[in-house]
C-alpha cells in the first residue's frame, strides 16, 4: 500500500516539477507548482513527518502560492521559453549531468540506512509536540533567527515594491481638492471688473458632503 502511494505521489511531484519548467504561461507554472507541493506533502506524510506536511500545505500551497498568483496576475504576460541557443542546450545537459552525478553519489555512498526502510517507528515521531519541543529547547536560536529573518524580509519587500515618485499624474488630479468658492467672496480684481467673477456659481464639490440634503433623506428612510 505504501509503495503504491509512494509511486503515485512521486509521479505527481515529478510531473508537477516538469510542468513548472515547461509551461509557457507563468500562471500555469504556478498551478503546476501547487500540484507539486501537494504531492510532496503526501511524500512527507509517507515519511512520517506529519507536521512538516501540514506546514507544507498551509504555508507553501496556501500562502506563498497566493502571493505568486497575485504577482503573476499583476505583472502577467507569457514569455519565450529559452534564452540563447547555448543555454537552451547546455541547461538541460547540465541538469542531466547533475542528476547522474547525484545518483552515483547516492548509490556509491554505501550508507547502510539508504537501503533500509529507516529507523523503527516510535510513537509520536514528527508530531507537533515533538517538533515544538525541539524548537523551543535545542533549536531555540535558529527559531528566533527565523522570526527576525521573516520580519526583515517583510520590511524589505515593502521597501522594494513601494512607489518611489509619489502618485501617478492622473491619480494626483483625482486627489487635488477643488475648494468651492461661495458667491460674493471674490478677489479685489473681480470687484473692480478687471477679471470675470468666478464666485457667481459656487463650484459643487465632487463628493457630496455627508449629512446634508441626501444624507438626511436616507437617514429618515433608514431610521428604524
Amino acid at each position, binding site marked *: 500500500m505504501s509503495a503504491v502511494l*509512494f509511486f503515485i505521489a*512521486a509521479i505527481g*511531484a*515529478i510531473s508537477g*516539477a*516538469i510542468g*513548472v*519548467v515547461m509551461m509557457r504561461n*507563468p500562471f500555469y*507554472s*504556478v498551478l503546476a507548482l501547487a500540484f*507539486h*507541493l501537494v504531492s*510532496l506533502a503526501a*511524500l512527507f506524510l*509517507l*515519511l*512520517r*513527518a506529519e507536521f*512538516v506536511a501540514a*506546514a507544507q500545505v498551509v*504555508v*507553501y500551497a496556501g500562502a*506563498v502560492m497566493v*502571493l*505568486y498568483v497575485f504577482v503573476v496576475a*499583476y*505583472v502577467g504576460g507569457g*514569455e519565450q521559453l*529559452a*534564452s*540563447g541557443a547555448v543555454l*537552451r542546450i547546455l541547461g538541460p545537459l*547540465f*541538469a542531466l549531468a*547533475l*542528476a547522474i552525478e*547525484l545518483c552515483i553519489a*547516492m548509490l556509491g555512498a554505501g550508507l547502510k*540506512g*539508504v*537501503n*533500509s*526502510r*529507516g*529507523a523503527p*517507528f516510535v510513537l509520536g*515521531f514528527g508530531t507537533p509536540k515533538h*517538533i515544538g519541543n*525541539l*524548537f523551543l529547547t535545542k*533549536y531555540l536560536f*535558529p527559531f528566533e533567527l*527565523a522570526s527576525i*529573518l521573516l520580519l526583515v*524580509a517583510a520590511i*524589505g*519587500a515593502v521597501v*522594494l*515594491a513601494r512607489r518611489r515618485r509619489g502618485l501617478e499624474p492622473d491619480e494626483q488630479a483625482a486627489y487635488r481638492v477643488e475648494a468651492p468658492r461661495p458667491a460674493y467672496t471674490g478677489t479685489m480684481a473681480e470687484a473692480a471688473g478687471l477679471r470675470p467673477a468666478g464666485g457667481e456659481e459656487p463650484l459643487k464639490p465632487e463628493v457630496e458632503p455627508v449629512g446634508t440634503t441626501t444624507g438626511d433623506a436616507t437617514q429618515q428612510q433608514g431610521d428604524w
Partner: protein
Amino acid sequence: MNIGWYLAVSAIIFCIGAGGVLTRRNPLVVLLCLELMLNGANLALVAFARMWGSEDGQIFALIVMVLAACEVTVGLGLVVAIYRRRLPIDVDELNELQG
C-alpha cells in the same frame, strides 16, 4: 519503501529545478524553479530524518521553508519594482550588474 527511493525523487526534483533556473528567462519562473530546488533538498532532509529516527532533519526542513518564504517575498518585491519602472521582465536583459 527504501529511503533510497525518496532520495532519488529528491535528486530528480532538484535537477529539474536547476535546469529550469538555467533555461527560463522570466524571473517569476526562475523563482518557482528555485522553490523546486529547495523542495528537493527538503525531501532529502525529511528522508534522512526518517532514516535516523530523529526529528532534527524535520526542523531543518521547516527552517528551509521559512527561508524559501523570505526569498519569495523579496524576489516578488523585486519583480514588482521592475514592473513599476517599466523595465523588461527578462533576466537576460537586466544585466547592468554584470559589468
